[in-house]
């Protein structure tokens, strides 16, 4: 009876998570530092007990202060100074998750999101900034688990990989995230 009560209570899952980001590829080459500034908001409507569909929103900020160094352009011009590199990532996806053990205390899931991701890159040096941006077509696989604390509240842990294909001013941008947060179940 307890299991059926828990199953029927899960209809609309809203997940708020703190997100840490790890850049890969071009993003990882530009900013090697881990991002500790990020969050995600995920909404899933359980169309079946083990299938949820919805939307994902997120924001991760990557930043690195580069040491005083010399950068050479076109072979005959050298520029020396400190660079401050920022990159903001805004994924906006529709997503679906498959829950392996609905109704149990620990409910693993895996899913895929598809949509768009906006990248905004600022490279600051002296009093100038080089700004590059792009709206990427994005894919986002994820795995994680819901850890139920009460019928209406769970903890969430997940790993996601965002991949934005080449677009605008930027090459393809990709990064992993580790996410920890809360899940609120609204009926």
């Amino acid at each position: 009876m307890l299991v059926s009560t828990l199953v029927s209570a899960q209809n609309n899952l809203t997940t708020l998570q703190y997100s840490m980001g790890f850049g890969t590829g071009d993003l990882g080459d530009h900013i090697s530092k881990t991002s500790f500034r990020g969050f995600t908001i995920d909404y899933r409507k359980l169309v079946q007990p083990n299938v949820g569909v919805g939307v994902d929103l997120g924001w991760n900020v990557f930043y690195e202060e580069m040491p005083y160094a010399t950068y050479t352009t076109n072979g005959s011009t050298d520029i020396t100074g400190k660079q401050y590199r920022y990159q903001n990532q805004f994924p906006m996806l529709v997503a679906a998750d498959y829950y392996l053990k609905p109704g149990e205390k620990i409910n693993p899931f895996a899913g895929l999101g598809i949509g768009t991701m906006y990248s905004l890159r600022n490279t600051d040096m002296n009093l100038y900034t080089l700004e590059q941006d792009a709206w990427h077509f994005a894919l986002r696989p994820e795995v994680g688990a819901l850890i139920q604390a009460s019928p209406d509240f769970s903890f969430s842990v997940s790993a996601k990989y965002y991949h934005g294909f080449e677009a605008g001013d930027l090459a393809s941008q990709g990064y992993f995230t580790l996410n920890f947060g809360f899940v609120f179940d609204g009926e």
Partner: protein
Amino acid sequence: MLLALGFFLGGCYPQGPEYVEDLDVVITNHNADYDFSAKGTYAMPDKIVKITGNLSEGDAPVFIPDAVAAQILSQIESNMNDLGYTRVDIDADPDLLLTPASWETTTILYWYDYWYWWWGGYYPGWGYPPVNVSTYTTGTLVMALVDPTIESANGNPIPQWTGAINGLLTGVYDPIRVNKAIDQAYTQSPYLKTN
């Protein structure tokens, strides 16, 4: 909750540079086809001209204070000596001419806070919103190495090497910042070394 998360993340957004020297930059450019190793002597003035808008109107040139210029020229000469050059008088037919110049640029930022006109208590009706103003001034020192035997089609000399240093001015001359930047301009120009 979304708004709160946004404010939270905005509050811990990385702040960037903390000190004015973090914004100092050194830029050098050279003619890759020019053979500096075949040169040995150079001439340099005893003053550093300060480029202002009045020169084009025929006014007399302005120079930076002699005490400051002496320090800058001394640092330049030290670096040129390390590269193997000998400073000579302008009448001694030098291989190169080193022409330093400087200027200041003041940027004025102003913006209107449009939300103010909503507050009838400050500006009843359609009163003007307050204007916010901020300014900053940057200083630039340019060092150009010119071969007196090479001119452009219009008769002007062509710099074979140009070094420029730029940074925010604080109102107080900081020889450490300036000397460090001058040294860096020559450090990143090993092709200047003469035999």
